[in-house]
């Protein structure tokens, strides 16, 4: 195994070449049968721009270029690398920011300054840094593909597990001593029984469009806890699940993704900024560097990797960035970690497909999108899942994809096709966002198919009553929505008191439970236990108030008591570590009950 060729942009041996014939934006054409392979990575022109072969026929080879093509001339040379577009997998991925084809932006800025220039040649990962390595195998062991042979503390939070590449197996011939090694030094030698031994370094290379193999898939059974009430309680996502967040601009897609990236109980976060704003990536970098993970106390960046292809970076690399992120995620899943991918936004990726498809003059389907949009989306989301890895560990990749529908209209092709392949749909609503109700996830349009799968977990780990309570809240909200239809026509004064109570309780649920303040230190992330107790208090209030209304006490008397406002501000008034305070609220509700009885006797 030739380990040096992993990193260098030099092409070692006599490789195939072609001559540029036509240039149209990021798409270039080569004349004749070049012998290139499909999806092969190529270097284009004198500046050695990175590109990928996307179509081949007898007299023409079509290549998409991941960098700006201005300045390129017909007649310049294109060199094949012999490999599909791949990423390097080794320690150093975490706490880092890459562009769409895994080039570290930090390193690019060291060589190129504040702006990203063309044809920059940097190593994907630092190959001079020595990592402290502890071997977990010994000579004579028989290893299979995926087996862990060494452990490297990559960041304070994460131990990186070096694995045998999936297609290799054999007897370990030699193992180095524990110590500090770079990512490309050969660490162990195995004998696959073919007569030639293979040296294995920490780093391995993997083509981004090929899913990494696993043993088998588990069904969803454990929720990805995000600390966000509307998600955890109302529309939960499972570890290894898929969710879509569609919403027009300004409805809070990015905010929701940031909140999940910050507070979810995944081990690793891969944040893909695909065709979004540069300032947002900067914000994530700054903020995540300062914030600490509530579970481990380490900086959040220690478990995070950012893939940034901002909207002004070349469009072909935008298409690749999603796959780059996925491959990194699968690699950490193989180590037995729970990985969550934030893809913001998949619409930009779909638009990159459309743009390239347009340049290739393919027959468009709906709204100019190529006909293969649905199959690409499904292939993307199907790479998520809770898996048994080749080495026997259990890990998961969860995908949370933002969708930016054109005009905020959910009937457009990307939202519709995404809906077919995700099981969790968090629909963001413009009118909620206008009223600054955040998270603006609308409870009537959203759904989660994981609710059934996860109900056992909730019953065992939170409370047996949890699912029942959740359904009761949903029922109240649904009743509110039909009552509001009537209120819209005739006003709320004419409603009977029991219906007025439903409106009032639904208001408490909306303001006190669904609305969550991302900038409040306690409210930004809430434990499952507190979420349950909040539900419990609201429903207890409802029960007592309903008893009063049934006895004939008017709502105006009930509302003159401050208890409703008290319950709404529980989210601010009860710190996350003082849940015993909920007992006081129960007593307050009882006092309220007595007060109304006495006052109105």
């Amino acid at each position, binding site marked *: 195994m030739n380990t040096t060729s992993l990193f260098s942009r030099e092409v070692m041996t006599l490789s195939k070449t072609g001559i540029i014939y036509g240039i149209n934006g990021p798409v270039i054409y080569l004349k004749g049968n070049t012998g290139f392979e499909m999806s092969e990575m190529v270097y284009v022109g004198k500046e050695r721009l990175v590109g990928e072969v996307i179509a081949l026929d007898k007299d023409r080879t079509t290549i998409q270029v991941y960098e700006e093509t201005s300045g390129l*001339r017909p007649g310049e040379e294109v060199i094949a690398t012999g490999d599909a577009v791949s990423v390097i997998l080794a320690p150093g991925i975490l706490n880092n920011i890459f562009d769409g084809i895994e080039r570290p932006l930090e390193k690019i800025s060291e060589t190129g300054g504040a702006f990203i220039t063309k044809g920059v040649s940097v190593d994907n990962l630092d190959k001079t840094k020595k990592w402290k390595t502890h071997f977990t195998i010994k000579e004579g062991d028989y290893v299979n593909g995926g087996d862990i042979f060494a452990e490297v503390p990559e960041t304070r939070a994460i131990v990186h597990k070096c694995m045998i590449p999936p297609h290799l197996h054999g007897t370990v011939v030699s193992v180095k001593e524990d110590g500090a090694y770079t990512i490309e030094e050969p660490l162990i030698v195995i004998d696959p029984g073919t007569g030639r031994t293979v040296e294995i370094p920490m780093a391995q290379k993997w083509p981004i469009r090929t899913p990494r193999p696993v043993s088998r898939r588990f069904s969803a059974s454990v929720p990805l806890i995000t600390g966000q009430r509307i998600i955890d309680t109302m529309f939960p996502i499972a570890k290894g699940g898929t969710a879509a967040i569609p919403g027009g601009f*300004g409805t809070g897609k990015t905010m929701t993704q940031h909140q999940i990236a910050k507070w979810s109980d995944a081990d690793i976060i891969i944040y893909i900024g695909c065709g979004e704003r540069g*300032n947002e*990536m900067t914000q994530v970098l700054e903020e995540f560097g300062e914030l600490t993970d509530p579970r481990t106390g380490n900086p959040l960046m220690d478990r995070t990797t950012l893939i940034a292809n*901002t909207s002004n970076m070349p469009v072909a690399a935008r298409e690749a960035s999603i796959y780059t992120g996925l491959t990194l995620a699968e690699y950490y899943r193989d180590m037995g970690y729970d990985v969550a991918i934030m893809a913001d936004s998949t619409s930009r990726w779909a638009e990159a497909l459309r743009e390239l498809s347009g340049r290739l003059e393919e027959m468009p389907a709906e709204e100019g999108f190529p006909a293969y949009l649905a199959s690409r989306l499904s292939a993307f989301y199907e790479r998520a899942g809770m898996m048994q890895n080749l080495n026997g560990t259990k890990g998961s990749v969860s995908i949370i994809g933002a969708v930016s529908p054109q005009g905020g209209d959910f009937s457009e092709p990307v939202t519709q096709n995404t809906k077919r392949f995700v099981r969790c749909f968090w629909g963001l609503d413009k009118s909620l966002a206008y009223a600054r109700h955040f998270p603006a996830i609308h409870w009537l349009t959203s759904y989660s198919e994981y609710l059934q799968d996860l109900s056992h977990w909730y019953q065992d780990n939170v409370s047996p009553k949890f699912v029942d309570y959740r359904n009761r809240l949903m029922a109240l909200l649904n009743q509110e929505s039909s009552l509001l239809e009537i209120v819209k026509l005739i006003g709320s004064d004419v409603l009977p008191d029991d219906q007025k109570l439903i409106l009032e309780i639904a208001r408490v649920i909306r303001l006190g439970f669904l609305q969550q303040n991302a900038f409040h230190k306690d409210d930004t992330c809430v434990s499952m236990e507190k979420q349950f107790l909040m539900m419990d208090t609201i429903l207890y209030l409802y029960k007592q108030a309903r008893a009063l209304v049934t006895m004939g006490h008017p709502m105006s008397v009930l509302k003159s008591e401050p208890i409703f406002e008290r319950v709404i501000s529980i989210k601010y008034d009860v710190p996350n570590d003082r849940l015993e305070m909920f007992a006081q609220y129960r007593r307050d509700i009882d006092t309220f009950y007595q007060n109304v009885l006495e006052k109105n006797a």
Partner: protein
Amino acid sequence: MPIEYLGLSSINGPLIVLEGVQDAFFDEIVEFVINGTERRIGRIIELYEDKAVIQVFEGSEGMSLRNTHTRLTGHPMEIALSKEMLGRTFNGIGQPIDDLGPIPSRLKRDVNGLPLNPVKREYPRNYIRTGISAIDGLTTLIRGQKLPIFSGNGLPHDQLAAQIVKQASLGEESGEEFAIVFAAMGVKHDVADFFRRTFEESGVADHVAMFLNLANDPVVERLITPKVALTVAEYLAFEQNMHILVILTDMTSFAEAMREVSSSKGEIPSRKGFPGYLYSELASLYERAGIVSGVEGSVTQIPILTMPNDDITHPIPDLTGYITEGQIVLDRNLNGQSIYPPISVLPSLSRLMKDGIGEGYTREDHQDLANQLFSAYAKVGDARNLASVIGEDELSPIDKEYLAFGKEFEEKYIGQGMEENRTIEETLDLGWELLGRLPREELDRVNTKILDKYYHPTKRDEGVTTSASPGSIANK
């Protein structure tokens, strides 16, 4: 040394095809000489072996297949840069049109710019005081932000932009250098003149570089105008350490020029005939705003676009909203009620606001106050809808209070004079004064401590009656 080619192979609208070219490169600029006298420039947009498709910036009128000489310049579209550009006026491709001679500079830059590396960006946090309550209080403009104005034909977006320029730039007491880069794409002569006059009257004309592509100027030229302007802005900001405010008007003309060129190239259209790369193209402009870490200067963008038929879901405002950091939306109904500036606050938004306000920037209560005003004003819309069905008399007392609040909010808070320059304290205090008209238990977005400190119930003026105009807010 450079070869001149005589004649062309074909002409189709602004696109011409030249065969037999040697050593041309993609995106190269070419020069034409027509009939030995008139000079024009164009850009290579497609290249097949020795056949180049060239886009002529000034349009192809008067060119024939025989009368044109073509010369390759050997460089992409470039512009000479210098601090001397301030106070000057240029055409849409950056050539001086004020008879003051060429720009004396050897420094030339590719107008396409390069993407700014996210790790070298600095997250914008300093707010710019515009003196306009609806902006300062509710959609605060941050230095380094891109905040477009979504407007419609006949709405006072130009006046608003001019007021922002006047009050934001002159309000600074610090010694920092500021300048304005103004790019007009396909705007009417009057509009360009209005801006020129405003800059002169407010005494900032020496700090303005104007790039004018007027409505009767060639359409293709428009595609390059914002790029030229932003190249100058980046140079002044990141190399001359100045704070630059860029005004781009009107982005709708820019996008329509793209559609025109795209269709003459025979490309597959996506939405409403616009090319599939409209998003990327808009993004490559809007993303050229921000702050580079370690550099004093900043580029703040205020693009103006007129929404065709006031439709915010039209591809141009829609894609813009996905790229920019918020938007200021103007509303025809408010304008009809003679409220200036007619900013529709509910769909307006500033994404960077949350990090640039509050303690240490403006005042501790700013965020809560803004949230509460938004939420209260959203309820006004509901109350008005209800009133339009059942009549105002039938409304519950609290809904009536909301109607009164809404009217006052629109008149006093949103509405202000074209010359009125409010301080941030005035804006915030006015907000509390208005909230004082609502009962305290309605204020559910404000932290209890802040409420204790700032909330004072106001007695209702006898004169104000609840006469709302139903349906004046396009809320639903």
